[in-house]
């Protein structure tokens, strides 16, 4: 089972002690352990089981304004001695950087709230197999489904973050994840789609049958796609794609991109970057939240931030190093956002589909087509043509393109937000994008 707090704390304090002895003026350490067990099914049969037991340690040492770090999966004291010695030695030989330092002491988290992130339940492989049997039987009901691959993972993790300023805290988290990938075939085409559910608590996981059926339905409806012509058209992003646009926004307001000058949102705080009705929140204290946490990866307390208020950018995501560079205080976002989401819009999903006589509903994008330096966006896409609120036929082999600066100002959100991932968006419509097809 996952290592307890005492073991991790002992390793952490050993490292801090040794680093100090070897000449580090400040240091920090993270020790973690994660045990996960996965069972995979394929076409209603057991395909793979996988157990992983991962230990990891990462240590950063400072000598004045010099800094270096090491990481390892080998936690034997012998090995740690060699590595810490190497780390301190490297630190001495690394040039100074005036912004290097541990976080300000008064910003560190003072208390660790119980955010209900750990479920002690252990699900045996046989129970996982029962879940997957039910899932796959629902997924392969329709004759058009020719392949099913499903997976169930239980993960239990524990960590300790400690630094030479006396900070020492950590806690256990758990996750239970089920997924199903199905392939459907007809005379003209073969298509793949998926469905997925991940929760902190086993009892909250989606019903196996529902999940399998949903994966299959979403795959079958993609069969016999058409390619459409190139034109300017309103795009509706399914929630699972819309969340990616929000993630791109988050990378563009990270203090590292801002301080390096490599973001199209540099110097945009207190300026309007979205349409009036748009609010973006990052809320770390949601009970059982997939992105919930008490402090960031430097130990800095994380409070809820309203990143965008009625279209106006209010905050960057700030860590200690880049904060000092920008003359701003860390807001506990080293390592990124927690539970990030767009607040609901005020139109239903149905009304959003109906709002244009013709639009494209996108369910999948491929390619790495987001450029946060310029804001340019161009990706391959799969989806459906929507006419007067109805899905007409599936579409593929097209691209959609635009620039985030314009796209953000043309967003309309539906009121169907749910917390399925750590970053979430309601269904999103963006007008004025270009589709390239035939």
């Amino acid at each position, binding site marked *: 089972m996952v290592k307890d707090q005492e073991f991790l704390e002992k390793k952490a304090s050993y490292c801090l002690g040794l680093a100090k002895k070897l000449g580090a003026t400040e240091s920090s350490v993270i020790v973690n352990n994660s045990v996960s067990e996965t069972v995979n099914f*394929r076409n209603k*049969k*057991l*395909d*793979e*089981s*996988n*157990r992983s*037991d*991962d230990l990891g340690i990462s240590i950063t040492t400072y000598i004045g304004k010099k800094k*270096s*770090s*090491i*990481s*390892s*999966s*080998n936690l*034997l004291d012998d*090995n740690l001695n060699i*590595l810490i010695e190497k*780390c301190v030695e*490297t630190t001495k*030989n*690394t*040039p100074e*950087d005036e912004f290097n330092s541990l976080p300000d002491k008064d910003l560190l988290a003072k208390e660790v709230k119980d955010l209900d992130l750990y479920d002690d339940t252990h699900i045996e492989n046989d129970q996982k197999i029962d879940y997957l049997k039910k899932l796959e039987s629902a997924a392969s009901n329709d004759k058009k489904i*020719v*392949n099913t691959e499903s997976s169930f993972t239980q993960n239990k993790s524990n960590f300790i973050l400690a630094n030479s300023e006396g900070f020492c805290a950590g806690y256990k988290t758990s996750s239970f994840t089920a997924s199903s990938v199905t*392939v459907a075939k007809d005379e003209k085409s*073969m298509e*793949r789609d998926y469905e997925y559910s991940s929760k902190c608590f086993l009892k909250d996981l989606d019903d196996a049958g529902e999940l399998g059926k949903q994966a299959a339905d979403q795959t079958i409806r993609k069969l016999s796609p058409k390619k459409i012509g*190139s034109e*300017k058209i309103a795009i509706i992003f399914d929630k699972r794609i819309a969340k990616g646009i929000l993630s791109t926004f988050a990378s563009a307001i990270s203090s590292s991109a801002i*301080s*390096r*000058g*490599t973001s*199209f949102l540099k110097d945009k705080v207190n300026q309007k970057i979205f349409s009036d009705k748009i609010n973006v929140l990052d809320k770390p204290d949601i009970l059982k939240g997939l992105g919930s946490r008490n402090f960031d990866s430097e130990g800095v307390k994380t409070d809820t931030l309203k990143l965008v208020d009625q279209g106006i950018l209010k905050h960057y995501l700030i860590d200690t190093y880049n904060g000092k560079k920008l003359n701003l205080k860390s807001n506990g976002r080293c390592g990124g956002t927690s539970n990030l989401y767009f607040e609901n819009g005020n139109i239903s999903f149905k009304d959003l589909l109906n709002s244009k006589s013709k639009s494209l509903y996108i369910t*999948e994008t*491929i*390619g*790495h*087509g987001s*450029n946060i*330096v*310029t804001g340019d966006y*161009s*990706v*391959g896409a*799969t989806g459906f043509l929507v006419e007067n609120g109805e899905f007409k036929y599936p579409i593929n*082999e*097209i*691209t*959609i*393109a635009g620039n985030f600066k314009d796209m953000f100002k043309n967003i309309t959100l539906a009121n169907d937000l749910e917390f399925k991932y750590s970053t979430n968006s309601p269904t999103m419509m963006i007008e004025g994008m*270009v*589709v*390239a*097809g*035939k």
Partner: protein
Amino acid sequence: MSNFFKKSDLSRSEAENIISDTLQKCDDGELYLENSKSESILLDDNKIKNSSYNSDLGFGFRAISDEVVAYSHSNEISKSSLKQSSENLKSTLKSVKGTYNHEIPKSNKKYYENINPIEQKSLNEKIKILNEVNNYLRSKDDNIKQVTANFLGEQKSVEIIRSGGETLTDVRPLIRFNVSVMLEKNGRKETGVYGVGGRQSYDSYLKDDNWKSVCDEALRIASVNLESKPAPAGEMKVVLGPGWPAILIHEAVGHGLEGDFNRKKTSAFHNLMGQKVASEGVTIVDDGTIDNRRGSLTIDDEGTPTEKTVLIENGILKNFMQDRLNARLMKTKSTGSGRRENYRHIVLPRMRNTMMLSGNQTQDEMIKAVDKGIFAVSFGGGQVDITSGKFVFNCTEAYEIVNGKIGSPIKGATLIGDGPSILKEVSMVGNDMMMDPGIGTCGKAGQGVPVGVAQPSILINKMTVGGTKL
């Protein structure tokens, strides 16, 4: 070579006994041990931003019965840990009645030297070069607003112990040197990125101020992009330059020819063996045996020596890439393509250096043959949906072609095509095959492995360009 049992309460013979006992009625399986050391030294924003070192040790124990794979990995090389893994594998496979396949081909060939690139150059020397890179670039162009340069070095020792105690080992060096610049002019920002690397020492790539040519290339790409105009949208002819643009081959057909997707019949290519899948004159190989290349391997991660596998010969589909599991189930032999990111992951059939071989036309002839289209010189990355066969890649340097002449540079756009049909649209194959500079990483099922690509210039009759200009 690492001695994995030196500091452990587990002796090699005890480990061999546990392995043989666990695998006795399985069809295949092994204990995979790995010790890797890696470093990253990063210059960014005029400063050495990061100097870090990682040492990773662990094992992965695999047992296979028919189609079922049981896997367990841990960082603790100890008696209790290996026994727990063994119990875990046995509990998954329950009643096994296979016959262990002891056969594994042997070879004495090695495609890289047993070196540790990290130790071959001191930290101070590496920092000195990074600072020189920064100064060199910033003094070259006043529009430079950001320079990032980094060294990545690694030495990975692997040992594979099979049932019966047969042991195979390999020590794999790998380095990479990258430079990225951002230019700003009249409020517009553009970046250019270039890098080199492979399985040799840093100095093999950087000696005699060779790093300057890496800087020049990154700066050249950024400068071109600063003058770029919006890319066109729609179907048109596309000329691809030689070398790195071969990630088109990697995405469009490479992934679809991996054994697992074809055994499972989820690849768009699964029923096309022996059929014409490309224009005449198109030959594609996947080669793990080229000296010191990023995608080369002396043995794969199951211990099979790598080879040069012909995938498509003169337009006809000849072979898939196989690991041992998929080869057995498809009644063929492993092509030495079984790879894993590290001991945390199961083996999958993967590409090594995927190459389209030269034809006999020139790039000039291709450009002249295009009335309206684009000339793509460099790409950022790509992705494929192997089931529908649709793939994309993102241009980082491209130009429009108007009436047989290269015109203005165009903004980065995504190109999209259909894997099984794209190679039939290849109407000219150049005589200028080139390897990529040694920077590619391929992702599959959450695992990244180093790969190479190569191709000559090619002309594709029809592809969709995802620009914004209608």
